[in-house]
């Protein structure tokens, strides 16, 4: 585990997911957003206003800063998705709902 995020109770990561095609172990009780933050992701997509990057801010479903593609659903809010075995996560596009950008 890298970065500033540290699990205090020493529990083992037991959930198997993929992030951008790479196999990753996640904790059973975490969300996709905390997993990606623990992995050190700092660019969740472009900000519509300019060249700034989006990143998770609220972690409670309000800021839409943690969007990524989860199991082929673009624009998923990573902070609202608990990890489960086999989840496929693709980061970096921050794509909002498809119809909006059509």
């Amino acid at each position: 585990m890298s970065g500033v995020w540290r699990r205090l109770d020493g529990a083992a990561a037991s959930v198997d997911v993929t992030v951008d095609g790479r196999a990753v172990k996640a904790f059973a009780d975490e969300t996709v957003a905390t997993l990606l933050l623990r992995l050190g992701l700092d660019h969740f997509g472009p900000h519509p206003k300019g060249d700034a990057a989006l990143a998770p801010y609220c972690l409670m479903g309000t800021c839409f800063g943690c969007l990524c593609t989860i199991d082929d659903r673009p624009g998923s809010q990573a902070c609202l998705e608990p990890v489960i075995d086999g989840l496929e996560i693709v980061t970096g596009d921050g794509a909002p709902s498809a119809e909006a950008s059509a």
Partner: protein
Amino acid sequence: MIGGPLDTGTGDRVADIAIVGAGLVGAALALGCARRGASVVLCDAGEDRFHASAGNFGLVWVQGKGQSAPAYARLSRRSANGWADFARSLGDRHGAPDYAGGGGIKIALSEAELESYTTALARMHNQPDPTDNDTRLIDAHELRELVPAVGPEALGGTFCPHDGHADPLGTLHALHRALARHPRVRVVRARIERAVADGRVAPFVLEHREGRVRASRVVLAAGHGATALAPGLGLDARVRPQRGQIVVTERVPPFLPLACHSVRQSADGTVLLGDSKEDVDFDDGTTPPALHAILSRAVRCFPRLARVRVARSWGALRVLSPDGLPIYQDSTRVPGASLVTCHSGVTLAAAHAGEVADAIVDERLGERYPSFSPARFGSSVAAA
């Protein structure tokens, strides 16, 4: 009369002008008065739940204003045309508040709506001075050229070149940063509980829990908070709440180049959807029927919104006088006390920081804006 000190050794705040209310109206007036050289104490009760400036939609809007009151249409237009400079003047290391002009559109979704817009426009064009309103009808073709994202139900609408939109919270915060920097302004963070004139050199005494503010003049600009203090100062703050519910979505790529009255896209990419008009007294909640009406109309205007997620929604209370126009008043019973209250705190912010603040500093508020005197309502509750 201006140019007095800001503090004495007694612990009282002393100023030329005390402004009660630190929302968009009070803050803009305070900055304008200070820029004219007056010492100002701004009394800020904080953001209580009925603080209109915290719930604003953010239109800088001229079309439809003052259909039977040309003075209001003109004031709105002067303010809207001064907005770009006003926003720039608030620029600091945090940037300037987001403002986009270029015009605004009210979309018609049925022949009946288009007809009602046509009738309203004809009424405005019958005003004595035809230059008072340059809002015009646009057909479906021109509407699609201006805003390509509109859906098939949009039949046309009205376009006004003075309209635009701004970030209301960003504007309020920028005003407060400018006030905090200004050497002629002090902000007192307290709710004024009593306001009296005691006949001394700085005759007005405003009492709050932790102390007092003394000033030569006092301006009530506290929205709904002005109603309790107004009668004692001979002022007529006859305002009532009208609720508007607003929805804001997640950020989406820019698709809306102009504000469309009840739909606007902020510079951040979020889309604001409004707005209901409900007389529900002091209830700032949200209700499923009003939100449904807002969302379904927005989707009929812009079908792509059907798949965009809602981030949050809220209700806020407009500050409405009996005829919807501002009330600008100099008290006759208590000379030196004035009232400024209006529904369009965003649209009029540039005027409030400019010409209206000038009128206050010059002690000519009532004289320069006779159309906004509460005398138009007939017998004054304040004089009773």
